[in-house]
């Protein structure tokens, strides 16, 4: 089986089967990490351009390692060094990259739909590494991969996403992916950070995590941006922390085996207490490891749709 797309723009556009395929493919890639030589020749000769309009060391490094472990060449184009500052448009940048014969473009951009523009413009496979408030599909996939690893299933699990849902591409990718695999998804946030009509995405909306904590299997805690306070979306960080922050006290009534997740980087003491972040329930560092495996799987599967001569990989 293959992916039916040239690009990975979001989990909304993938079928359940395609998501399962990526998750299944990521498994043997993860096992590769325990070997001394963590590399396979699968993408030898291919070029992966990392086009980051927004700084994100974490996501960029993860993609870069994933590409390198598949033996691809990588090129970094970061906003500070790019011609964007000189006013070059996204379409012109895309055309330049096309001329460089890139096979993959991993794009991170602060505006929703940016990955779509570039996907429409050039023939390389585009991987959306986060576009505005829209989607961050590989983060969604690595979150699901991590849950699956710990819980052996997604179907029927009660999973809460807590924090700034309004501005979160991670939340949207999680919602699409988890729903397709049969989880019950809850979103918990101040009312001012809940986007319009989100219930139509098949999620339950809550303002108080205490009311649902007892039935949750997973809590995925999102980073809260300090500038939201200036936009009057909540009064103070202290108030946010007290009412919406996840701490041990709030977890008293939780299931013993509840998973605590966070896409990072964390604001310790604001959306998550240090105690919770460092507890046994937390899988935050494993998310980082899994991110590489999932991104390898995505690159591998997208290369295959190209009809490119990609060697089959045996674990």
């Amino acid at each position, binding site marked *: 089986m293959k992916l039916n797309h040239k690009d990975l723009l979001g989990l909304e556009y993938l079928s359940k089967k395609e998501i399962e395929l990526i998750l299944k493919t990521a498994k043997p890639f993860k096992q590769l990490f325990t070997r001394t030589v963590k590399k396979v020749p699968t993408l030898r000769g291919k070029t992966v351009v990392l086009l980051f309009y927004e700084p994100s060391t974490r996501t960029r490094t993860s993609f870069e390692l994933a590409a390198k472990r598949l033996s691809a060449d990588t090129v970094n184009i970061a906003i500070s060094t790019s011609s964007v500052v000189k006013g070059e448009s996204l379409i012109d940048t895309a055309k330049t990259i096309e001329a460089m014969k890139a096979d993959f473009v991993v794009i991170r951009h602060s505006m929703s739909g940016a990955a*779509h523009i570039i996907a*429409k413009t050039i023939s390389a496979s585009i991987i959306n590494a986060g*576009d505005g408030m*829209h989607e961050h599909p590989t983060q969604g996939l690595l979150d699901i991969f991590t849950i699956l690893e710990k819980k052996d299933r997604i179907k029927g699990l009660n999973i809460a996403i807590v924090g700034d849902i309004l501005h979160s591409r991670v939340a949207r990718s999680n919602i699409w992916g988890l729903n397709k695999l049969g989880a019950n998804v809850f979103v918990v946030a101040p009312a001012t950070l809940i986007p*319009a009509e*989100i219930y*139509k*995405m098949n999620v339950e909306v809550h303002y108080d995590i205490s009311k649902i904590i007892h039935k949750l299997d997973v809590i995925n805690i999102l980073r809260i941006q300090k500038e939201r306070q200036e936009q009057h979306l909540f009064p103070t960080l202290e108030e946010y922390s007290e009412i919406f922050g996840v701490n041990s006290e709030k977890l008293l009534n939780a299931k013993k085996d509840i998973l605590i997740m966070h896409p990072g980087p964390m604001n310790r003491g604001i959306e998550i207490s240090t105690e919770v972040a460092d507890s046994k329930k937390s899988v935050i560092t494993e998310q980082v490891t899994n991110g590489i495996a999932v991104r390898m799987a995505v690159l591998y599967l997208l290369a295959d749709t190209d009809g490119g001569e990609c060697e089959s990989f045996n674990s």
Partner: protein
Amino acid sequence: MNLLILNGLVVDPANRICKKADILVENGKIVKIGKIQNAKCQMPNAKVIDAKNKIVTPGLIDIHTHLREPGHSDEETIASGTRAAASGGFTTIFAMPNTHPPIDSVTGVKFVLMTAMHEGIVNVLPVGAITKGQKGEELAEIGKMKNAGIVAISDDGKPVMNANIMRKALEYSKMFDLPVISHCEDTNLTKDGEMNEGYISTVLGLKGIPRQAEEIIVARDIALCELTDGRLHIAHISTAKSVELVRDAKKRGVKITAEVTPHHLSLTDKEIKNRNYDTNLKVNPPLRTEDDVKALLHGLADDTIDCIASDHAPHLAEEKQQEFKIAPSGIIGLETTLPLVITKLVHKKVLTLSQAIEKLTFNPAKIFNLNCGSLSIGSAADITIIDLNKTKTIDKFESKSKNSPFIGMKLIGFAITTIVGGKIVKENGKIISD
């Protein structure tokens, strides 16, 4: 040149005419409508236009055109904009004042009128700014601009956010019988907004613009209109609740009128998702939902909404080919308005042909005291001939800009001949400019 337009179906809502007739034009004026016996012998020097199986109407009027001159002649000029108008069947268009600099003085008004006289091929009527520099702070010289030829005032592009200034504008303009065209948008609620707020904006991760941003100002301006007994015209109405507010106000006898654009009647926010963030769907106010479209159609049919206006807003391709967030709002409309009205309203029986023509001719003329919009004997021969059955896929434009979401759409019903003051400016689909 004298003209004989023979055998057309004449639709002139102003004079309640809807019948097969010939029209005789002499020295730029309409001199006769009816059966003209042996016309060709009577008028051997007249040019004969065979309008058999065609509709002959008063020249269409667009009360909401952005011509971009002065300031952005790379997007549109008075010359190119009037060609687009002629091509779309319009013989008279308003020039909205949000140019660079804005039309907020007699000098600006004269510039538009002079340029239109020399370079335009249809009638251009300037709209003056409500406030100096369209800053919303101090009234512009409305009286002097009226004497120079404006037909209305508007800060379109943005609202007058200060209610007290809006009150003064309604009071002051009343003396000159000038309607105030209101762009209803509470900018505190629309800040950074990209599209209609709802499920689609949530899924696409675009910043939402709530309907209430429009409705609050519609309600406010109706209240101010009642307070001042002024004349208020709501531009590009887009929500169901706004329609209701206007309907109720009209029932109470408030002097309020409203217009709607063809795109708000034919597209919804869903299209932005279907077309993967196509910025040609980014307009202000934003495209709404199916329920809003239904309410707008209903509002048109029961005459709550008086006019259909293009809100022709040209933008450069490179400006539109950007991320949705930074692309400017607005689409061109002069050349698609009539075919959209015929395809989506007349052929679908939302409006009768006569009602549709009324909203593009007689109603705008009545609201803005224009001496056009009818085929009355003695009036200037502004005439549009329409082929209701002509189908065409939208592709080319006379406008300098091409920012249209209707490109590639097959529409039915186009203007084939446009006559301004007895002069043919478009014939057989071609613009004739001298």
